[in-house]
């Protein structure tokens, strides 16, 4: 199987060069999702335009495909009907699903020259954890992130807290949010201390807390989960206590999509969300804000997150080679730096942080370096076989706890039992 993929890759490489040289443009489509605020589609279109000018033999058609979930649905539907987009940006965590469906090819076959190898080796290792398995590379990091804490300095000042000092530990975080929550005499809250969104990426937020409590949620092979470990229950307990015990966090479910808006409106003094929202917040905030690493429990930590480039198996070798060249072009240090500045996502390689553009940017806006610095403490994002199903089992149970219908230990036992049932056939 390894060799077959390798041969397919080499054959693709051998065939692609002449095909590209013989004129007759190679056309392929590129599906990408948008999961953060801001005018991202315009940025992508301008990149595709630049690439077309530099590579007249290749015509790439970028297609905005909705959220990550919707993009995966579209790509897999197209795969089953036989004509998938050659290149797509999909959640790095869906790697096992895509491999099981035989929808993507490993990329090692396209990496030939020493320059190629240097480029591949320069991606941050934390990002490669969700891009490689069993010795093969299946995805190229593109819009990758970690979870960071945003805080509103003006509201910190109002509450009598040092506006330059974000909470560094769970205990501090809990103490700060208590002071940052504003209630009237009847107990109605006009400003919350913090928001940790619980729709869409609830599993991701829990993972951050679990890492900080010293646990990992799944093994690197993606066939075993550890949802019922005491640290995970403790992490969930910390989260739900913010809402139900100290009442410094909105009751019920907090929307992923509206959390940045709540922060911009001053309805919450802090929020936990992806660094991919950084540029959106920077453009729209009418107050001073700061960005910090997540507070530490037993240790610091955050899962990585975000999307990788993947190349479809059902595409012509010439298309695959062209798609690879586009992906490689998109992740060049200058462009990775530009993309990071335009969005807030982490520059995916060390070299991106060596570029002049990035150095200037960081000098004027040091907050942008926080997510990169946090990579030192980062852990692979939860990723298993049948990833969507396993994440739903976990996400549903998190929501059950936050809405008060289950206790944390019971919910995590249920989630673990469901994950066991799903993953047993893959061992």
């Amino acid at each position, binding site marked *: 199987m390894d060799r077959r993929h390798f041969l397919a890759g080499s054959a693709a490489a051998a065939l692609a060069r002449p095909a590209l040289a013989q004129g007759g443009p190679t056309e392929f489509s590129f599906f990408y999702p948008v999961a953060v605020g801001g005018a991202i589609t315009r940025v992508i279109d301008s990149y595709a335009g630049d690439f077309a000018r530099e590579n007249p033999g290749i015509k790439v058609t970028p297609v905005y495909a909705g959220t990550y979930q919707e993009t995966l649905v579209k790509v897999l539907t197209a795969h089953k009907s036989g004509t998938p987009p050659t290149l797509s940006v999909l959640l790095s965590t869906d790697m096992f699903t895509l491999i099981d469906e035989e929808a993507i090819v490993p990329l090692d076959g396209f990496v030939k020259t020493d320059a190629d190898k240097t480029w591949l080796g320069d991606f941050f290792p934390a990002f490669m954890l969700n891009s490689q398995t069993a010795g093969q590379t299946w995805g190229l990091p593109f819009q990758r992130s970690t979870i960071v804490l945003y805080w509103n300095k003006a509201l910190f000042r109002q509450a009598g807290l040092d506006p330059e000092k974000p909470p560094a530990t769970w205990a501090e975080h809990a103490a700060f949010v208590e002071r940052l929550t504003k209630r009237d005499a009847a107990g109605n809250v006009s400003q919350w201390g913090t928001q940790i969104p619980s729709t869409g990426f609830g599993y991701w937020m829990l993972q951050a807390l679990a890492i900080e409590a010293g646990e990992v949620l799944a093994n690197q092979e993606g066939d075993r989960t550890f949802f019922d470990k005491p640290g995970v229950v403790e992490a969930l307990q910390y989260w739900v206590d913010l809402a139900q015990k100290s009442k410094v966090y909105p009751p019920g479910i907090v929307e992923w999509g509206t959390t940045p808006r*709540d922060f911009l409106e001053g309805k919450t003094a802090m929020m936990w969300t992806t660094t991919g929202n950084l540029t959106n917040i920077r453009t729209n905030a009418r107050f001073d804000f700061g960005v910090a690493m997540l507070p530490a429990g037993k240790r610091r930590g955050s899962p990585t997150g975000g999307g990788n480039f993947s190349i479809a198996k059902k595409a012509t070798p010439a298309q695959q080679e062209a798609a690879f060249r586009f992906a490689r072009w998109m992740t060049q240090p200058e462009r990775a730096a530009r993309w990071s500045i335009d969005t807030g996502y982490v520059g995916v390689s060390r070299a991106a942080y060596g570029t002049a553009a990035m150095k200037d940017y960081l000098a004027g806006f040091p907050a942008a370096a926080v997510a990169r610095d946090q990579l030192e403490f980062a852990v692979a994002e939860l990723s298993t076989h049948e990833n969507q199903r396993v994440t739903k089992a976990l996400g*549903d149970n998190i929501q059950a706890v936050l809405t008060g*219908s289950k206790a944390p230990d019971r919910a995590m036992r249920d989630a673990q039992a469901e994950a066991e049932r799903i993953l047993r056939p893959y061992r």
Partner: protein
Amino acid sequence: MKSRLSAAVHGWLLLLPAMALLVAFTHWPAVASLVESFTSTPRPRRPSRFVGVANYEQMLADPVFWQSLVNNLRFALGTIPLAIGLALLMAVWVNDRIPGRTFARMAYFTPTILPMIAVANIWLFFYTPQYGLLEQVTAALGLPSHNWLGSRETALAAVTLVAVWKEAGFFMIFYLAALQGISPTLAEAAALEGASRWTFFRRVQFPLLMPTTLFVLINAVINAFRTVDHIIVMTRGGPDNATSLLLFYVYQVGFNFWDTSYAAALTVVLLVMLAVAALVQYGWLERRVHYR
């Protein structure tokens, strides 16, 4: 003889286009779902095989299926009577000669013109905690804040309300058309007899509207099991499956988990439920609705 044959051929030729479309996009998929529901989901390394009723056994043991079923029945019980009642009320209201009648009719019909996705996004803003429209109103009245879509108790009611708002205007159009078909002599006769407004409605208008009510009822039942656009936009079935409806769950199993055989089994259950509902409505109700 020859002309009868050619008439038959003619007839069948006229039926053919619609028939071909129905068979290709309605009948064949239904049969294919039934067949597929008895097989396992094909995976690249594990081809599909016959598994008997295993998918149905899985369904019986699947709490999310049961929750979706119960949610869907509640959703139906909420939307059907409310949407029909409201539609009838609005239709009787704008059927009268009131000032600004055209404007009122248009206003009631507007939700129908909007795509469900747009409607859902508007209501998403209404329900937003803290600064949503609903919150601003309740805060001005001094009532406590509530996370409508984010708590298990209110989420299903909140999405039910959106569906009622969206559907009532549509059903109103049918009632309005039917009301205009009722002869004005009946109203005059009732007025001469000194019948009250309510008696006239109960004894004359409502019975004459029964065929329309049956038609609207059938549509309402179908919609209650078919409308999931707003669920996808507003809650994605959450919190913890509190707003998961059957069709939404079918979509999730089919297109997020790619367990197509299990999704086929769920589809069959949905089809059977709708078929039973249609049989009851056409076979039993229809015989009692006509005013004699």
